[in-house]
């Protein structure tokens, strides 16, 4: 491995193309003891999660504290949370690609990996939640023994289509972006590693014949992924909005969910990118400008979310609907009031710190704000699902949900599952896009000044 870079955060313009290759490739390979210590901790947490799931399968879904009316409880809360996290990646890689936002290049690979792993984590929850997860294939569109097809008018079936399409397209987009970078890794390695990377790079050589189709295909994939980003969380929101439950049955839900997803997704990107910048010494690539841009997007989505929160309360009052009013009142004042006010604090108040530019470029402040946002967005989904179901039309169906050790352990385990995938990824694949970072650097020119490209 080559020597660590000598750049400082103040001299990003001095980076050359060869530096990019070197700085990215040195992050791939045998990690140190600290990394293994983290991996052990994460693996242990994951093992607890798996054991809890096994216990739940053995005992039955009652082990998770599920009883009417709180059948969705924490599992669907966490499912929606993870799907939301999975939003920022494709937003950064597809939407910002189409808008030619050049600051995306340094963060998009990490964000895409995050998306794929977050959706893989989210995908576990319908299985865990369904209890008998070996019957999950019943959701797939195939005729059973009685020639019955799934009910395509059901939002739950739309959800299956939306999530599996999102996962597939995100994975394809992610892999397509990786191919030229794996070729760079291949050219830098020897022995068995070289063979593995050669297979994974599909023999990529960067010839004009390959690039011309690649560029077109990538652009079209981005164009297709853009409406997909907006549709996935809209469809997830239909799971709620199509039901008649007070607090759910609202046309506000689709944009509300999409905005919240982008908000939490950006927070998770920051949570992952800031340590990577520190440990990999990527200051020349992830500069204050990048942090500033991400913080601004977080701030904007927070303000939009605040507006939606206000609308939700206003509509409940203005509709004159007794049950809507009662639902909001119960959320704000009854047993789950802590979650309600915690959500307002984390999602509406804390991000206001980012109005100051000094806070936006301070990685400690950004990190703390991001953690608050993640907590706040989990609480938001909790607020929609648990108090929503716990206080609907008839007092005799009201009920309070208490988490159990089993379901809490499974949820903590899901974070371990996500982090084990992400930590594994950053040591075997380039987590900064070699090609795209080079694309936005000044191209080498013999005659004429630098920076003459488009």
């Amino acid at each position, binding site marked *: 491995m080559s020597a660590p870079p000598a750049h400082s955060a103040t001299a990003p313009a001095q980076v050359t*193309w*060869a530096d990019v290759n070197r700085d990215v490739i040195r992050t791939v390979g045998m990690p140190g003891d600290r990394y293994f210590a983290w991996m052990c901790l994460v693996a242990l947490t994951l093992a607890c999660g798996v054991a809890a799931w096994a216990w739940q399968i053995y005992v039955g879904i009652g082990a998770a504290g599920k009883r009417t009316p709180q059948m969705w409880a924490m599992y669907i809360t966490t499912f929606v949370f993870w799907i939301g996290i999975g939003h920022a990646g494709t937003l950064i890689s597809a939407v910002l690609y189409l808008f030619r936002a050049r600051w995306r290049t340094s963060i998009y690979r990490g964000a895409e990996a995050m998306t794929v792993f977050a959706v893989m984590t989210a995908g576990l929850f319908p299985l865990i939640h369904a209890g008998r997860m070996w019957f999950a294939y019943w959701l797939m569109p195939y005729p059973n023994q009685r020639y019955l097809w*799934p009910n395509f008018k059901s939002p739950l079936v739309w959800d299956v*289509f939306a999530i599996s399409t999102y996962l597939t397209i995100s994975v394809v987009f992610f892999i397509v972006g990786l191919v030229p970078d794996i070729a760079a890794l291949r*050219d830098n390695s020897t022995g068995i590693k070289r063979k593995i990377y050669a297979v994974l790079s599909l*023999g990529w050589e960067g010839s004009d014949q390959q690039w*011309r*189709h690649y560029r077109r295909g990538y652009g079209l994939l981005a164009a297709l992924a853009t409406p997909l980003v907006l549709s996935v969380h809209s469809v997830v929101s239909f799971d709620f909005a199509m039901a008649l439950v007070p607090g759910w049955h609202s046309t506000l839900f689709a944009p509300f969910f999409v905005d919240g997803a982008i908000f939490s997704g950006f927070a998770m990107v920051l949570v992952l990118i800031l340590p990577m910048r520190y440990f990999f010494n990527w200051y020349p690539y992830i500069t204050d400008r990048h942090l500033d841009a991400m913080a601004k997007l977080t701030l904007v989505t927070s303000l939009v979310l605040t507006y939606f929160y206000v609308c939700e309360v206003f509509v409940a009052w203005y509709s004159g609907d007794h049950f809507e009013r009662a639902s909001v009142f119960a959320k704000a004042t009854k047993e789950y009031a802590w979650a309600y006010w915690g959500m307002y604090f984390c999602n509406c108040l804390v991000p206001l710190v980012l109005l100051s530019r000094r806070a936006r470029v301070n990685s400690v402040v950004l990190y703390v704000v991001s953690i608050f946002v993640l907590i706040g967005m989990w609480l938001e989904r909790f607020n929609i699902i648990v108090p929503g179901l716990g206080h609907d039309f008839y007092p005799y169906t009201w009920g309070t949900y208490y988490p159990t050790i089993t379901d809490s352990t499974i949820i903590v385990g899901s974070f371990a599952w996500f982090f084990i995938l992400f930590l594994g990824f950053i040591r075997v694949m380039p987590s900064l896009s070699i090609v795209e970072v080079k694309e936005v650097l000044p191209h080498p020119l*013999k005659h004429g000044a630098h920076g003459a490209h488009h």
Partner: protein
Amino acid sequence: MTTASVLGVFAHVDTTVQAIRDLRAQGFSDLTVYTPVPVEEIEHEVEKVRPLSAVRLFTLVGALTGTATGFFLTIWSSLKWELVTGGKAPVSIPPFVIIAFELTILLGGLASALAILVLGRLPKLTPSPTYDPRFSVDRFGVAVACPPEKVESVQSVLSAAGAEEVRR
């Protein structure tokens, strides 16, 4: 007919573009240009003599197949068992649009990825003899396929344009 191939290695975008222009002007059209990243100036020069990439056709066909499949699957399966669910007619288009939309994106995206593979001739099982590992770092390559007797004139064009290294 046997052909020889000559490779010029360049360090700069403008010299690479110059080499492509000069070679074309001398009648050498069988060029392969290696670049570490897609570069607009080079792409512009190379694409001048080519029809537009056909990836978009793949995408279109894939996407339309997806739309058709989505509507077909939902409508046909509802008609197999005409049951009124949720007070909606067996064939109610609005909910089916969601399935059709998702399948449009799914098959359109998969077709685009397939197009990158098929049209870009990937996976490439044997490396090209003219490929050099520096082309994934910071060097550009122009490989010219020409009759053996023209090798020398190609070499001189490449050197004159500013190649760092010229080899057969």
